[in-house]
């Protein structure tokens, strides 16, 4: 069943068109990988899906669970089930990770008409989830991402994903900057959360991650367009030959 349907999506920043007409359909239970050279528009696509205001959508549509989300604020999209793990997670001095996560989860619960979570119950839940991504609970009392190492920031993204349990998670280069162990931990996190009702879009430069998170489809984004789609074998081929053979 279709979860996300992107149709001829074009987007500008400061008057320059970055996305030149993206088409992509993601069904429940699927994992899609998006690869492509630096600057091809992968993060832009992720940001547009999450609702970043700086990007102006000039054409096309994005349907998520059959609803047009382009007019919605980022928080509304999040509550509908879209999650973006940032390529560069933002540091927020003065806001504790714990408080941030609890506020976010409670907003999701309110949206679903559920009772908000008690601090004690939340603490248990978040410890459990931190354990899933092998994150030391001491990171929970620190300010969001402040002074975290690159890899710690990425794990924190996965922790947030695990707490919010999105229907569609977009992981933007969550693997870059991770050591081999961390990579496996993050991948295990994704695989634990994976089920027949949700889907993942995994943006990566490296085939390595796809050994752990096995995609159903691999797409190549180049110059703001998807120029080739295939199965997981495409990733192996790209690893071997680079991008030139498709681009030219």
């Amino acid at each position, binding site marked *: 069943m279709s979860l996300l349907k992107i149709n001829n999506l074009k987007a500008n920043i400061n008057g320059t068109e970055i996305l030149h007409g993206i088409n992509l359909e993601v069904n429940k239970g699927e994992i899609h990988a998006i690869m492509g050279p630096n600057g091809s528009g992968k993060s832009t696509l992720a940001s547009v899906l999450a609702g970043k*205001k700086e990007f102006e959508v000039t054409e096309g549509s994005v349907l998520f669970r059959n609803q047009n989300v382009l007019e919605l604020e980022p*928080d509304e*999209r*999040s509550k509908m089930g879209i999650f*973006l793990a940032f390529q560069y997670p933002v540091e927020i001095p003065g*806001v504790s990770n714990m408080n*941030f996560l609890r506020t*976010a989860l409670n*907003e999701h619960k309110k949206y679903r008409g559920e009772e908000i979570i008690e601090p004690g119950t939340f603490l248990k839940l978040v410890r459990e989830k931190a354990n899933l991504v092998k994150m030391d609970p001491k990171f929970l009392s620190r300010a969001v991402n402040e002074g975290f190492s690159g890899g710690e920031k990425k794990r924190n993204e996965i922790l947030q994903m695990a707490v919010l349990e999105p229907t569609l998670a977009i992981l933007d280069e969550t693997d870059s900057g991770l050591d081999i162990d961390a990579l496996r931990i993050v991948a295990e996190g994704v695989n634990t959360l994976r089920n027949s009702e949700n889907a993942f879009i995994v943006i990566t430069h490296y085939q390595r991650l796809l050994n752990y998170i096995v995609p159903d489809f691999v797409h190549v984004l180049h110059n703001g367009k998807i120029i080739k789609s295939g199965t997981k074998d495409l990733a192996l081929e790209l690893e071997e030959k680079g991008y030139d053979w498709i681009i030219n």
Partner: protein
Amino acid sequence: MNLIENIKKSLSENILNLSDLEQALKVGLPNPKTESWKYTPLNFPISNYEISTKEINSQNIELFKYVERFSKENDIPLYLLNGEILNVIPNLTKTNIEKQYNYFIKDFFYYLNQSTNKEIYSFVFDKSSENKNYSFIVGALAEDDNFLANTSLSFVIKKDTEIEFDFYFTNFTKKSFLQNNYFSFKLEENAKLKINILEDDPNQLNLINNFYLDLSDNSQLNLSVFAIDGIFTRNNIQVDINGQNCDALLNGLYIGTKKNVVDNHILVNHNKPNSHSNQFFKGILEDKSRGIFNGKVHVKKDAQKTNAYQSNKNILTSADAQIFTKPELEIYADDVKCSHGATSGFLQENEMFYLMTRGISREQSKSLLLKAFVNELIQKIENSNYVDWLDKKIDNLI
């Protein structure tokens, strides 16, 4: 000017200093040409104000709430309503005014204050006064609009004494009120004074607050001022470091909303060597409010080995809000360490976006970020009673 006429009419000559009143008239109200008032418009009709001469009606529910808050053992509250002392606390004496007043800038408000204060109340605190919670509630209880109160107090903290004061400036009614306050503090050798000042305006309060602090050898001052959304707030805080090995920490937070004006004018004079001072002020300006920060450090010629720092950070949440910030360093000694910095900007869009992608609304993200911004200052206060009060106030605002 109406104000002066009104005062002459309402007060009998034996409680009035006529010459000061004449002097006030002569000096005149500050105007945009007055250097230290350049960016600070008097956004209330000052010339129409009157002195309140009515009996104080203390049957006020807001006042009761304050009274209840300070009913714990060790709480020693002093209520100053409409410029009058309502209750008596230990350590209180009356003193002649002249001696206390030499330090303040002799402008309109100074003469205005002096004109109705022939004697002022003075407090002396020594070691026997330690370990108690002293709160000074400076409030207004007016029956009509546009009343003025001139309050003056003087404090001496004796040698080796360590003490904490909480000041609350407020208005218990919905009537417009102007407080014109002068407070002076003398810290004797090795005295430690902590002052928390909360300028809390639920209603119509225009506030002119003058604090003068005189530091002797080895004394320590830790002053925090929270100007929370008064219609008009002007703080003049002057610290004279007249001894060696002193420590003067001045922290401040100001929040402006609507069309309110909030102004902090700080002056630290290093008159002697080997002391340290730090000014740390943060502001949030919303709507069409205006903030003014003027922090001056003056290091005299023989004040060698002085360490003086200053920082002012502002967040504007609206394109119509304004901040005028001006650090001033005047250094006449050569062996000193001084620094200052000021920043002003809007909320970080990338931080807002990050929070919002987690399901947190724009409004709530904004208040999380603003709360984080102010927490750095609130954390410096140890008195949990005070912190709770402040937290609630700030939550209501941002």
